[in-house]
């Protein structure tokens, strides 16, 4: 029947590029103003998606640099999500990732600014090895990962920082092999990613226990329609195409899920009218799901996408230029 819409078989690359470029021209809508607290992350999601689609020249590099500099907090040395907002480790990593991808890191982060930035990040570590997101004390394995990746990009990791962070991370593993946000918390695929990512960046994957159990739990995230969920008995969501798949990628076990069905699920979440990718088919698209859908497709080896590094969520050709810890 012609009324039944055909499922999309291809990545609508041109539409997604157009969608990402349109994100900064939505000023007539209230949602644009309500999302300033996420602007730096949003910029990273959009730019990383463009890099993965090999279309990074679609954005003006100098404009991007200007925005990042406006978000630099001279008082404490971190980057905020938006000018005048407070610096936080989440927006700091996004800023560093963008600078690294556009090869502007050494230009923007140098001299005294570099020293202050490294001090800001290292200063967030607590005596138990965990990291707080800012000086108000919220602790979460997300912040350990973002801090460790930030220092990895700056090539400033040290044994003193890394070892306690690894010890704390290992305490977050659960009976099912997965990891939670702090010791005691339920396993969640996004937290598994931050914990495995931390171990990988620290060169400490050999300390991972119950790997087989973890891989089993991860592969069980695939549901009947091919999508992946983040916890048992939850709905599938495109962002877990990244959180789960990157973990399997780090452990070299991508084939533990049905790759063809996941690929179809992601393609099915595309908005073929205005571009972008949503959490589930026929839902509202956003930059976050657009990146993690495309990044997932890249891990699945989708044609003509830039291979993406499952540890950093940046193109492999970029991360190849980062010196790996332990430094020789």
């Amino acid at each position, binding site marked *: 029947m012609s009324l039944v819409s055909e499922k999309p078989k291809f990545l609508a690359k041109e539409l997604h590029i157009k969608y990402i470029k349109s994100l900064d021209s939505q000023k007539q809508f209230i949602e644009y103003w309500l999302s300033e607290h996420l602007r730096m992350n949003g910029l990273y999601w959009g730019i990383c998606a463009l890099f993965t689609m090999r279309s990074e020249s679609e954005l003006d590099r100098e404009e991007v640099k200007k925005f990042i500099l406006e978000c630099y907090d001279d008082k404490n040395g971190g980057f905020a999500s938006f000018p005048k907002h407070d610096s936080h480790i989440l927006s700091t990593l996004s800023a560093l990732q963008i600078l690294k991808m556009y090869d502007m890191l050494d230009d923007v982060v140098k001299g005294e600014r570099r020293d202050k930035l490294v001090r800001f990040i290292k200063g967030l570590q607590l005596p138990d090895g965990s990291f707080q997101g800012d000086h108000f004390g919220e602790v979460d394995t997300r912040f350990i990962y973002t801090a460790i990746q930030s220092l990895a990009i700056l090539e400033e990791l040290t044994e003193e920082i890394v070892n306690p962070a690894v010890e704390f991370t290992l305490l977050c593993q659960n009976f*099912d092999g997965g990891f939670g946000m702090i010791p005691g918390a*339920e396993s969640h695929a996004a937290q598994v990613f931050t914990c495995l990512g931390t171990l990988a960046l620290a060169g400490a994957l050999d300390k991972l226990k119950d790997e087989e159990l973890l891989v089993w739990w991860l592969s069980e995230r695939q549901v009947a329609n091919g999508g992946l969920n983040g916890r048992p008995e939850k709905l599938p969501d495109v962002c877990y195409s990244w959180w789960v798949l990157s973990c399997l990628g780090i452990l070299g076990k991508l084939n533990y899920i049905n790759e063809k069905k996941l690929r179809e699920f992601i393609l099915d979440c595309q908005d073929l009218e205005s571009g972008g990718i949503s*959490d589930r088919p026929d*839902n509202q698209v956003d930059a976050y799901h657009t990146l993690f859908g495309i990044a997932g497709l890249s891990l699945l080896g989708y044609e003509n996408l830039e291979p993406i590094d499952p540890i950093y969520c940046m193109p492999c050709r970029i991360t190849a230029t980062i010196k790996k810890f332990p430094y020789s």
Partner: protein
Amino acid sequence: MHGIKRAHLSKDGRLSKIEKDAAKIIKYRRLNDTVFENKQRELYNDKAFNETTALLNLNPELYSIWNYRRDILVKNKFNGLNEQELHELFQSELRFVQEQLYKYPKCYWIWNHRIWCLNNDRLSDWLFELKLIAKFFQADSRNYHVWQYRRFIVECLKKTKENEKDKAEVDYDEFKFTSNMINKDISNYSAWHNRSKLIGKLFLQSPEIGVDDNDEYLRIFNNKSKLQFLKKELILVKTAFYTDPDDSSVWIYMKWLFGDYFLSEIESSDATSLINETISDIQELNELELSDEGRDNQCGS
């Protein structure tokens, strides 16, 4: 954006939204600019505080404004207050946060602010918090934040108990709470998870928790018998997989029950017979499924 249906605005729809949003944008930006300007000028007075309330009501995701609000509290509003007066101030802060949480139960920054308040109030009411949590579970019994918050509150409650026995009793009450949650809904994986954590703690507790001959789990924990525990727990697990064989929670949990944590402390003959019994239960379930629905439960379909 999670779980919001896709909608493409028609040309008229778009124009009408732009028209409607224009007033909202003016109001929001005016307030936003004022509060960020206050923050830059390091204003810590009551007016600036009330303006953070108004702005956070429009947008609770503004973490910088939660930070600023805490700065105002510490640098101005706390000044000269005794313990009781501070408690009252925190109470009003908690009421504000509670309203926010009803609207945005998954916003990290709001939960974070609540925890900050409770950590700073020396008269915090942990039992009230447990009652509040029950309300949140009625709305969503898998909310990741609420479970995390519950574990935090329980740890705070334990700190108020003077001896180890009383602390262990709090853990045991939590264990019973997971039983209740699982009995209500066997697919509550968050409850199964918490149960696994509490079992680990209860087997490590040294003092006897209290004696109630009718409470078999209590006796088992006091006797530290993993074999007895497995036998008892497998009854619950069997009920759960018969209730909903397609639910993955109980199967993941069962995998743990038959892992090293338990089996390393059990005679291998006992372990073998428990495993065999369970296998035959599962075979029986499969046969039932096959005759009821024409399919078995082995392929995960």
